[in-house]
C-alpha cells in the first residue's frame, strides 16, 4: 500500500488586505492525493486553518506539521503554503532527510507499476512526464488543476474539531500589503552548491557564501519605513529632505528600537498626496478595530471626514 503524505499550509497572506486562504497548490496537492490514492493519506498542516481545510476536504488523518518532521512515505505532495517560511527549501529538506527524489512545479502525479508518473509544468504549455521510483517529494505548482471547492459549512464543521483554527472572515484588521522578496537568480544561485539550506540562503542573500555584504535591517515598521524613504531619496525616486534623513547606526542589527519621540508625519507632508503614502501601522495605544486604514492627516475634528479616505 502506498504511503502518501501531504503537506499543506495557508502560507503568506494574499496580495490584498483581506484574509489569507489556502493557496491553490495546497488545495491541488490535497485533491491529487485524495483522487489518486484515496482518502487514506497522512495530511500535515502547517497551521490550524490548513488542518481545518484538510479535514473539511475529507482527509481522515490530519496532523500538525512543524520543523519538516513527517513520518515515512512513498510520496509526499507539498503545496506552496505547506512550504511555510522556508519556501522551496522545505521540500528540499524533506527530500534530503528521507533520501527521496525531488520534483518541483508538479501538476499531476499518478501511480505506475515501477513507481510514480510525475507530470511537471515547464511553462508556456510545455510539460514533461517523469517516471520516478519512491520515495519522492513533489512540490505542487500553482497551475495544477484545482480540487473540489470546500464550502464554508464544511470548514465550520471541521473547526469544531480543531481549536487552533483561525476563524476566517472575522479578522478585524485589514492587513497591509505584504512585500515579497525579490529572488536573486542567475550567477548568485549557480555559484553555490551543497546543502539545500545554503542554496536557499544564498538565493536570498542571507549567507556568507552568497557573497552578500548588505546589512540586514531589523526593526519596527517605522524604522523600516524610514529606511525605505532614505533609500528612495538616495536613489532619486523622491526628493531628499533633511528631516527625513535616516541614521542607520542605531537601527541596524538586532535590538534596534524605534524612537518614540519621532512624529508620525514622517511621510510626505502634502495634503494632496495619495492615500497610500499616508498609511501607517496601528499604534499600540489604539484598540483593535479602531482607526484602521490610512493615516488620518489633517482631519477636521468636526467633519468626520478624514481626507485620507477619499
Amino acid at each position, binding site marked *: 500500500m502506498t504511503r502518501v503524505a501531504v503537506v499543506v499550509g495557508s502560507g503568506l497572506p494574499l496580495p490584498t488586505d483581506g*484574509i489569507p486562504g489556502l493557496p491553490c497548490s495546497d488545495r491541488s496537492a490535497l485533491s491529487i492525493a485524495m483522487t489518486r490514492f484515496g482518502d487514506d493519506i497522512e495530511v500535515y498542516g502547517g497551521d490550524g486553518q490548513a488542518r481545518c481545510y484538510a479535514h473539511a476536504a475529507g482527509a481522515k488523518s490530519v496532523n500538525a506539521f512543524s520543523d519538516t518532521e513527517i513520518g515515512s512515505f512513498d510520496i509526499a505532495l507539498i503545496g506552496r503554503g505547506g512550504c511555510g517560511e522556508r519556501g522551496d527549501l522545505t521540500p528540499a529538506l524533506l527530500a534530503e532527510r528521507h533520501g527521496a527524489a525531488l520534483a518541483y512545479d508538479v501538476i499531476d502525479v499518478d501511480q505506475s507499476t515501477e513507481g510514480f508518473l510525475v507530470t511537471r509544468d515547464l511553462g508556456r504549455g510545455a510539460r514533461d512526464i517523469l517516471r520516478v521510483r519512491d520515495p519522492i517529494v513533489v512540490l505542487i505548482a500553482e497551475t495544477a488543476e484545482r480540487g473540489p471547492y*470546500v464550502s*464554508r459549512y*464544511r470548514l465550520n464543521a471541521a473547526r469544531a474539531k480543531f481549536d487552533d483554527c483561525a476563524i476566517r472572515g472575522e479578522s478585524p484588521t485589514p492587513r497591509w500589503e505584504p512585500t515579497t522578496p525579490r529572488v536573486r537568480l542567475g550567477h548568485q544561485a549557480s555559484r553555490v552548491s551543497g546543502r539545500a539550506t545554503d542554496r536557499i540562503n544564498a538565493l536570498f542573500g542571507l549567507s556568507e557564501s552568497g557573497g552578500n555584504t548588505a546589512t540586514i535591517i531589523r526593526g519596527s515598521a517605522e524604522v523600516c519605513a524610514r529606511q525605505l524613504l532614505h533609500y528612495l531619496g538616495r536613489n532619486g525616486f523622491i526628493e531628499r529632505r533633511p528631516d527625513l534623513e535616516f541614521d542607520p547606526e542605531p537601527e541596524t542589527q538586532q535590538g534596534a528600537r524605534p524612537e518614540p519621540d519621532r512624529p508620525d508625519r514622517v511621510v510626505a507632508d502634502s495634503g494632496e498626496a495619495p492615500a497610500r503614502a499616508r498609511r501607517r501601522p496601528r499604534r499600540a495605544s489604539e484598540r483593535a478595530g479602531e482607526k484602521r486604514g490610512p493615516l488620518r492627516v489633517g482631519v477636521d475634528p468636526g467633519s468626520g471626514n478624514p481626507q485620507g479616505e477619499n
Partner: protein
Amino acid sequence: MMEVEVTREIFGNIPTWLVSSFYVLAFTACGGAAVALVRRSRVRHLARRPAETPAPLPARLTSIVGYLIFHKQLRRDRFAGIAHLLTVYGFTILIIGTSIVFLEHQTPLHFFFGNFYRVASLIIDLGGLVFIAGLLMFLWRRHVRRAEQLLQAWWMASLAWLLLVIAISGFLLEGARIATTLPDFERWSAVGYALALALHTAGFSAQDALAWHRLLWGFHALVCVLFFALIPWPFFAHMVYGAASWAARSRRPLAQLRTPQLTDTAPGAANLQSLDWNDLLHADACTTCGRCNEVCPAAAANKPLRPRAIVLGIREALADFGGVTDRSELPERFDPAALWSCTTCGACNEVCPVGIDVYGKIVELRRARVEQGSIPEQAEAVFEATSSAFNPFGKSNSQRMAWAHGLKPPIAEPDEEIELLYWIGCAGSFDPDGQSVSRAMISILDRLGIRYRILGCRERCTGEPARRMGEEGLFQQCARDNIATLSGHGVKTVLTHCPHCFNTMKNEYPEFGASFSVEHHTQFLARMMAEGRLDGIEGHDRLTYHDPCYLGRGNAETEAPRIVIQAMTDAHVEMPRHGRESFCCGAGGGSLWLDIAGSDRIENIRAREAAGTGAKTVVTGCPFCKVMLEAGRQALPDPGSLAVKDLAEIVAERLPALDGSSS
C-alpha cells in the same frame, strides 16, 4: 286535466345491473384514486427538512376560493386563463348538477322538480356549454396554435379530450332521453332539447332513442369512471395539488430566499429528503404549462436552463422514490450548466399559476453542488474573493473608496451613532458603472443637505452573490459580520442604490438579528420629490425605465422610480415587459461572473427591447443592471442611439448645484 310533473326519472331506462355496476366501478375508481393520492402524500412526508410555517387555515381557504373564483394568477396568460376559467366554472356547475341528481335519488330529499328543475336544467346545460368552450380553447391552443411553451407529449392533451368526451356524451345522453317523449318543459334543457329535436327530425323513433339512451348512458358512465381513476395521474393531479400548492405558497417576498439552519445537516437539496414537504407538493402540482420557460431570461437567450425541467426533474425523482430505497443524489439529475444559468430573477415564480417556488429549488440545488464541491471556477473565484477580500470582484478592500476620488463623503468614525447610512455596495465601489452611481448619490445627498455617513473601507459584501450561488455558509458569515458592524454604529436606516443589497438587508438580514430599516435610492428620491426637494429637474428627453428584478418583482417597488421619472419628462415610455413582468438584465444570481453560453445574450435582448421604444435613455435603479445594459447597448446596431443611466445620475445631472447654478 292533471298537470304533468316537471321532473325526470333518475336512472330511468337504465337496468339495475348497469346502475349497480356503475356504482361499484365508481366507488372502486374513487377509492383507488384516494389510495394513490394518500400514498403519494406519504412519500412527500419523507421530506426531512421542516417546511415553512404556512398561512393560517382560514387564510389558506380564502386564498383557494379567491384563486378559483377570480383566476387572477391564471389570467396572467390571458387566453389560457380564460380557457381555464371557463373549464373550471363549467366543470363546477356540472359537478353541482350531478350532486343534485345524486341527492334527489339517494336521499329522502325531494326538490328536483317544477321551477327548480327548469332553472337547474338551464344552468347545467349552460355550464356544459361553457365547459366545452373552455376545453375547445385548450385544444385549439395545443393542436392548432401549437403554443411553443406547452409540453409536447401525447398524454398532455388527454385530460382535455377525456373531459370533452364526457361533456359531449352527457349532452347526447340528455338529447336521447328527451327524444323519447319530447316533453315541452324540457325546453329549459336547451342543448338537450335541441339535440332531441335534431334526432326526431332525423327519424329516430322513441324506441331508437331509448336504445341509444341506454348505450350512451353506459359509455358516459364508463368515461366518468375512467376520469375518477386517472385523477392521481401526473397531469390530472394538478386539479388536486394545484390549488393546495397555491394555498401553501410561501409568504416571503419573492426575492427572499429560505434560510437553512446550518447545524448537523448540510444545506442544499442533495436528495429528496433534504427538501421540504412543500417542495415535493410543488413537483406534483406543476401543470407543465411552460409559463416559467416562456418568461425565463436564460431560456430566452437559449441557455441550457428550462425552469419547468427542474420541477419535472424533482417529480421524476419522486416517482423513482416510490420504492423508498432510492436515495439517489438530486443534483446529478440536472445539467450543471442549467443550474448555473439561472439569474434568480424570480420571473418563473411570479408567473407560475400554482405558486411553485422554482428558482428557490435551483438555489437549493446549487447549494448541494457547493457542498459537493463541484462548482464552476468562476463561482469559486467569487467565493474566494468574498471570503478573503470581502467583495466578489476580488479587488483589495482598501481600494473600496477609490470611487470617491475628489469627493469628501463623510466616513463614520468608530462607535459613531448613525441615523442614515449610505451603503455603497461592491458594484458601487469597484465597478466603473456602479461608481458613477455612487458619485451621483453623494452629489444628491450633499446638495439636499442630508446628514448621512458611509462606512468607507469597513464596508463589506452583503454576501448576496455568494448566497444566490449557493454558498450559504459564507453568506451567513458575511451577514453576521455586517450586522455586527452596523449594530456597532446603531444604524437606524440604510440607504442603498443596489437592489441586491436592498433585498438582502431588508428581507434576509432580519433573520440574523438586523433591526434597521432599509430604503432604496429610488424610494428615497421619490420621497424627496414628494417633499418638494427635487423641484426643477424636469425637461429630460424621452426615457424608458428598466425595472431591476430585485426591486420591481422581488420587492414590489415599481412606483417610486416612475414617480421621479414622470417628474423629469413627459416622454416616458414603457418597454413591453415592465413592472413586475420586467425582463431580467442577466446579472443576478451570480450571472455577472458566471457566463453560461447561449445563442443570444440576455442583456442584448433587453437592450434591443429598450431601443425599440424609441427612448434616448434607458434608466435603471441597479448598478448590476447598468453594467449589463451598457454591455447590451454596445451590441446594438447603433449604440449611440441609446444611453444607459441610473436614476440617481439623471437626477444629479439636473439638480441645481449648491450655489444655485444648474449643474
